[in-house]
């Protein structure tokens, strides 16, 4: 015992026997899924583009600077995606637009996550009347088309990029409430939760320490998939003129602007449309891959 | 073996091997077992989790999932019919007709959206080509046979209790009067008093239908109730086999001894339990020598070098243990 003790102090046992992280396992599973890897590469590229675009491009000159002489040029070596009705390079605008779309998507999902998990987890754990009220409100929310709801929120709060994020976020809260509640209900009856109560842990801490980490995988999957739909919702709002104000190059408003020229200059709508599709597609492929990697039933 | 005995053979397996190739390595679930079973006999296949009992049963039914499972076998015959070379459509005829299986969990073995009567009738319609009316009639008979009033044929599984469901499962398994019944832990999920009822029922039905049975279990008590012969499995091999009396009263293998010693003795409650030390070996990395050697109290150097082969001790009793090279060797166990 003496010797053991000194050994222990030299090299802590916890350090000595390394943890094998759960993340590595998920990564190993994910790596074998081709679709997920393609999705992952695409989304990483899009994120990099979004981050690097202010360095590569001069916002005032390349993105919103108008060059009337160059207007409505088809794709060429100078302008890969052509130019729009104000002579702006569509390629630069699409690239810069990734910033808006991703930001709106991610922030909106975070808003939805924060509200959804809090309400959903509380509803699942507390149960009873509270659960009933939350879930009925959730039902009402899901029965209103999310774009309509977002329009209502934006109209009430005013038109700005932040309000757009908020609107899309609130409109996509309901599925998170459902997922969180369902996950909590499943975990709630596990014996380790009872064990935590038996050692005298308060309820809020049980939710935080034991229940949420075990629901996390489902929530991550849901979040990844929802970023895609949030991007679409944001684009729809911008298309309707309720989103990111002009002249910022949001993909949805670019579509909207290109609409009146679609007969003769279809590339004006083609490229922003493709950008939306590619982003959402890659997120969905990644999300599906993560779900498969996390689902223990599909292992082996 | 005389001709008469050969005709009596219901099941004949030679050198059955099953392995599962997973990304974590090759799991060697069954490592070369021979089994024979004669008409009207009941064999108890005893062992702990991971001993390869269920895999053996699945291999007999040709139901080992592939991938990842790979089955190798020199001979697999059911009443003289070679099962190994049969194509899938013929196999379906064999399953249910010649062999059927009772699973451990009656809750998952029944389909919740069909009535109990329909589920029994279904296999009759397929295998016996009965009209749907006749099949219904027979289904009712089968229910009565397992002690459920025939009026309940129109009820759904959730309206039955656990013991009742297991009776229904037994009725389905016996509906086509199979020659061989594989029962995988049929009473483990049930309460003691219900377990007693079900075991009694199985004994009765066996008599009535002349069915041979393999009963897979970890419960030596159940084996004593139903079986004529016993095969003890450890890490995918049979370590001891013989008649019920051979294995229970003239135990030879140290592992079998360990199993008996682990059980609380109902006669002497102060007796200290003598568990088998250690754990089952990792099936992806089995030792070169005897798989039980690391946990064995009688281990010697010879045990670690080579895999012991089954040797005959008497006409019916065989054991796979190197220690019996020494004619003086005996284990400590005395009969309870």
């Amino acid at each position: 015992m003496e010797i053991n003790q000194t050994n222990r102090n030299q090299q802590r046992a916890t350090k000595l026997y390394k943890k094998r992280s759960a993340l590595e396992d998920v990564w190993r599973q994910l790596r074998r899924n081709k679709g997920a890897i393609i999705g992952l590469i695409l989304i990483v590229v899009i994120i990099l583009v979004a981050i690097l675009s202010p360095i590569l491009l001069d916002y005032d000159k390349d993105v919103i600077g108008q060059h009337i002489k160059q207007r409505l040029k088809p794709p060429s070596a100078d302008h890969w995606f052509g130019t729009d009705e104000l002579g702006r390079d569509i390629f630069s605008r699409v690239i810069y637009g990734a910033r808006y779309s991703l930001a709106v998507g991610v922030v909106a999902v975070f808003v939805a996550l924060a509200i959804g998990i809090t309400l959903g987890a509380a509803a699942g754990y507390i149960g009873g009347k509270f659960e009933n009220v939350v879930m009925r409100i959730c039902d009402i929310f899901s029965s209103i088309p999310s774009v309509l709801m977002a329009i209502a929120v934006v109209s009430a709060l005013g038109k700005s990029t932040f309000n757009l994020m908020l609107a899309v976020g609130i409109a996509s809260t309901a599925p998170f409430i459902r997922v969180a509640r369902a996950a909590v209900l499943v975990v709630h009856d596990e014996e380790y939760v009872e064990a935590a109560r038996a050692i005298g842990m308060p309820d809020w801490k049980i939710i935080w320490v034991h229940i949420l980490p075990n629901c996390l995988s489902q929530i991550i999957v849901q979040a990844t998939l929802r970023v895609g739909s949030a991007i679409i919702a944001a684009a729809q709002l911008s298309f309707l003129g309720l989103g990111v104000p002009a002249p910022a190059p949001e993909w949805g408003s670019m579509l909207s602007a290109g609409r009146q020229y679609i007969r003769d200059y279809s590339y004006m709508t083609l490229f922003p449309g493709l950008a939306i599709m590619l982003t959402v597609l890659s997120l969905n492929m990644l999300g599906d891959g993560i779900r498969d990697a996390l689902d223990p039933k599909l292992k082996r | 073996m005389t001709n008469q005995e050969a005709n009596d053979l219901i099941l004949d397996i030679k050198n059955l091997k099953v392995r599962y190739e997973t990304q974590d390595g090759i799991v060697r679930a069954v490592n070369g077992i021979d089994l024979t079973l004669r008409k009207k006999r009941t064999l108890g296949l005893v062992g702990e989790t991971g001993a390869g009992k269920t895999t053996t049963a699945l291999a007999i039914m040709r139901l080992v999932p592939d991938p990842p499972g790979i089955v190798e076998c020199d001979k697999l015959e059911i009443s003289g019919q070679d099962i190994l070379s049969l194509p899938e459509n013929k196999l379906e005829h064999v399953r249910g007709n010649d062999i059927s299986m009772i699973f451990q969990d009656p809750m998952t073995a029944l389909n919740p959206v069909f009535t109990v009567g329909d589920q029994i009738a279904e296999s009759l319609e397929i295998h016996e080509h009965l009209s749907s009316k006749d099949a219904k009639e027979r289904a009712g008979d089968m229910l009565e046979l397992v002690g459920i009033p025939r009026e309940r044929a129109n009820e759904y599984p959730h309206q039955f209790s656990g013991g009742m469901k297991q009776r229904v499962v037994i009725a389905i398994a016996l509906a086509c009067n199979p020659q061989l019944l594989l029962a995988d832990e049929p009473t483990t999920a049930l309460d003691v008093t219900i377990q007693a009822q079900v075991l009694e029922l199985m004994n009765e039905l066996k008599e009535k239908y002349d069915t041979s049975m393999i009963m897979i279990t970890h419960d030596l008590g159940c084996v004593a109730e139903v079986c004529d012969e016993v095969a003890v499995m450890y890490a995918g091999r049979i370590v001891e086999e013989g008649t019920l009396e051979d294995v229970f009263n003239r135990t030879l293998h140290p592992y079998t001894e360990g199993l008996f010693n682990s059980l609380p003795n109902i006669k002497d409650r102060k007796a200290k339990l003598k568990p088998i030390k250690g754990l089952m070996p990792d099936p992806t990395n089995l030792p070169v020598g005897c798989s039980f050697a690391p946990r064995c109290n009688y281990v010697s150097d010879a045990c670690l070098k080579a895999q012991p082969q089954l040797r005959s001790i008497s006409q019916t009793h065989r054991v796979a243990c190197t220690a019996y090279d020494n004619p003086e060797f005996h284990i400590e166990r005395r009969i309870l």
Partner: protein
Amino acid sequence: MSETLLDVRNLKKYFKTSRGLLHAVDDISFSLDHNKTLGLVGESGCGKTTTGRAVLRLIEPTSGEILFEGKDICKLSKNDMRKQRKDMQIIFQDPFSSLDPKKTINQIISEPISENKIIRDKRKREDRVLELMETVGLAERLINTYPHELDGGRRQRIGIARALAMEPKLIVCDEPVSALDVSIQAQILNLLKELQEKMGLTYIFITHDLSVVNHFSDEIMIMYLGQIVEKAPTEELFTNPIHPYTKALLSAIPVPSLLEKRQRISLKGEITSPINLPNECRFAPRCYECVDHCRIGIPPLLEVNPGHFVACFEHV
């Protein structure tokens, strides 16, 4: 050394269901001395698990008193109850669902210690975890593994270490070995027995397996549909069972021996529904000795021999 640790009086737990009131535990009283083991035996649905949970107030009892060292824990506030939990722990049946799959062994075992602020220093806490692991026979190298990497027996040892971490006085063992293999079962039973001797623990041992409880308990309480039908010291119960249900249970144990063929008492039917029970002996519908006056009311639990209680009209 034989002072009473736990005294349960008129404990009831009813659940409201859509079909009526479910009598899970219906007016049971018992007491348990220090350093003793009480075996709680019955079939599924007899209320033994609910009793175990209610005694720890993991399920709020409908009514009744639970005196732990003379103090009624049902009257404690939520906060005081949390502090009280140090002394009363539970070991679960299922070694797979009772451990949080996202936590390492170190985290699982140290949780009760840090939660109740017994040891604040992280290093000392880790030493205590290693000490506990040694006590229950877990190798030191496993400290950072996750439960899913281990087999059932080792997981059950983790559950035991977690229960021991706060040095409780009472441990409710809810079928602690029924999910384990025979050879592992014996290892765990021996461990529990050793720990009891070493640490002076008191056990409530819930099980359906009479041969295990025979080996393990000082006293046995047989439950049927939420009520105690017979309660006696183990020797007495096995040599002189009185209640027809006890007799049937004892005769139904499959004995792994060929030397004696016992006369089996076969019970008809299965346990009846615990919802909206009629006012008669609850075992009457399945009883092979049932007579008319068994249907006049619920038989009281009466003492027939010293320490031997039976609830049966016919035999008392």
